[in-house]
């Protein structure tokens, strides 16, 4: 279960074969999920599954979408209907209505990914890409597959999280090599170093980044360790040790 601050408000469009799985996992992870479906049979199934926060909508009518009560600064919008054509039209409608909303859509091919991006989706999740790659990794690099499975696909307290550095953290001005992430049970995987641009830079690149306000750190670790680290960032107990440099 997520820490309270990580819980998001999600509006999930679609309760078909993908939407159903997404609803289950998003809810189980502690996110607040509001379901919207255009298919009557899916609506009935959702009711049978005792989902209360559910509404019908018609992607062709803006009023119908407005009725869902979307707040673009608060809600994440997930377009997960079974047919790409429906998702495409919905993305178009949502982007027209809510310019600043974060829209995530599912796609079944590279071609549809391109179309959905063009329509205005921020992130596209290819429904086969991760599965196919995981399968290939399982056959070619079984240990890597095991690691990925444990970190990403299995229910445990390991996760990859991001932290955006505020202006008043004690990390500000320090270099990555000065911080003992390892001692805190964390692995610093990548960083968006604002001084260098918006590109995600992996630590294996060998640059000793200087932390500044606005930088985004991507960390792998246990949920408790990540929360502790976040708390420490604002507090005075934070200790930068030399051990991190040794590793």
């Amino acid at each position: 279960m997520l820490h309270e601050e990580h819980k998001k408000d999600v509006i999930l469009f679609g309760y078909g074969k993908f939407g159903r799985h997404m609803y289950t996992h998003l809810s189980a992870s502690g996110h607040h999920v509001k379901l919207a479906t255009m298919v009557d049979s899916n609506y009935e199934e959702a009711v049978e599954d005792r989902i209360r926060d559910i509404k019908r909508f018609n992607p062709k009518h803006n009023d119908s979408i407005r009725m869902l009560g979307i707040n673009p600064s608060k809600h994440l919008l997930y377009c997960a209907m079974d047919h790409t054509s429906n998702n495409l039209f919905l993305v178009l409608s949502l982007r027209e209505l809510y310019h600043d909303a974060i829209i995530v859509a599912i796609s079944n091919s590279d071609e549809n990914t391109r179309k959905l991006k063009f329509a205005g989706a921020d992130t596209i999740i290819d429904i086969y890409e991760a599965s196919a790659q995981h399968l290939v990794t399982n056959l070619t690099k079984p240990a890597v597959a095991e690691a990925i499975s444990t970190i990403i696909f299995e229910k445990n307290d390991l996760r990859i999280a991001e932290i955006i550095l505020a202006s008043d953290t004690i990390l500000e001005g320090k270099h990555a090599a000065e911080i003992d992430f390892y001692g805190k049970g964390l692995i610093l995987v990548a960083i968006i170093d604002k001084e260098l641009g918006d590109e995600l830079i992996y630590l294996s690149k060998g640059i000793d980044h200087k932390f500044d306000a606005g930088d985004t750190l991507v960390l792998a670790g246990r949920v408790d360790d990540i929360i502790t680290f976040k708390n420490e960032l604002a507090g005075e107990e934070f200790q930068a040790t030399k051990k991190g440099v040794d590793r």
Partner: protein
Amino acid sequence: MPAYKPDKEKVTMIKPLGRSIVSRIVKFAYMIEGSDQYQKLKNFTYDLLENDRYRYKRWFDFFMIFIILSSVLILVVEVKKPVPQWMDDYDLYFVTTIFIVEYLARMWVYSDMHKIVIRLSEESHYLHHPLQLHKVLGVLIRDKWSYVVSPAALIDLIAILPSYRQIRILRILVLFRAFKMLRYARSLSSFLFILKSKKFELVTLLSLTAFFVFIAGIMLYVFEGDGDNPNISNLFDAFYWALVTISTVGYGDISPVTPEGRVVSMLIIMTGVGLIAFMTSIIVSSFSERLVELREHRVVQEIGKKSGVIVICGFGIMGRKVAKGLAREGKELIILERDEEVAQKAHSSGYRSISADATQSSIFEEIGIESRISHVLCLTSDDEQNAFIAINVKSLNPDVTVTVRCSDKEIADKLRYAGINHVIIPEEITALMSVAHAGEPVAFEALRSIIAYKGENHIDEVEIERGSMLEHTLIGSLKTEIFRLIILGIVRLDEEGEKLFLFNPDDTTTLQAGDDLVVMGRPAAIAHFKQRIQ
């Protein structure tokens, strides 16, 4: 005349003698049946001669082709000038011996004589009827005779004869040595296989041609054989002219000189053009009909020499992505796809593909489910179809690792219960990816990039082998920062043999043989690290 009386003493002597021989034959048959060495030798001989999947057969085929070509070359050179004695000896003794041994070996592996004897013995025992020697010999001889009179065996037998130099006419039989090539050169045998499929059409065409040659030859002989044409002195000349003309070759050594003869020529030329076109169309259509079949047959033959083959059932979106990823990693693949057009598409994309129903066992047996296939991936979009294929494979060989795609956890549980090794649910993984994205788009992109091996940062594994320099080494002393690698963890087998991922192990963790170190970094750095530890 006194009535004939058989010599009772002689009869009673023969019967026990016959029975004694039969009982010895039966005893010998059982002895062979129980001999592992005999079975191994016979299997080896069979594989070498007949099993296209046997890895050494290829070399044996090359050897035989060399023997045949060298023998033909010697016999051809010998026509004009005598060859050195060693060549003569090579051809007479070595080549002939090889051919004789091969002929006998093929006859040996053609059938199991001892099994026939055992069957007859058990039948006679069951019926309480003594086994007769002549019956045993009769069945055995009939069995081997069926091999001797087979076309391929006849060619083999005739190919041995040219070595007998005393009869010069036998040299023409050298041609049969060239025919032996059909056994070893697959493209030639494929051509014959195609022609065989159009046997009826070709025989009809040949009969028609023979009929026209016969009619035209007689007509020309009647018109010009009485002395008008000096080149036609007998009926053979007329038939020769007719055949040369109808085939559109037209040497010109014989040509009609009378108006009647020329009319016959005109008719036969027109008929010939039609016949040639007809024959061409038969062969071309036959090739186009059988092309897919031939290609698939070749796929099986090619893969027959390899092991660790991964079979992908279904070439939909998922199948294509997996095939692409595995091909990139250099894995041996075969795509099985029920839809012929899709299978052809897979072939056009550069994969070995076969249009076949993977729910049937025959295709897996043909590819080599016992020894060649290591993994089967059931990736069609139909759960039931995937389950059917998976059960089919597992029932054929439980040791093959089977991965099944399905759409639901309940189905996944059933499949795991049935012994399926891995189950993958794309809907589930998509949902997990969506959870990973929720509110953390940067972490999600990093994660996606790592999973998909996109970008310049890869995740890889380093196996700690027994006796390697990393065995018993502390994590803290690896100095991976020199290579700019990040250690994500160690995959280790627990006491029950289950894989366990130890995330971010501390410096005092000792690496053990069998561990896999999971590291993240640039491919070049990972390769360099692997090289250094070796």
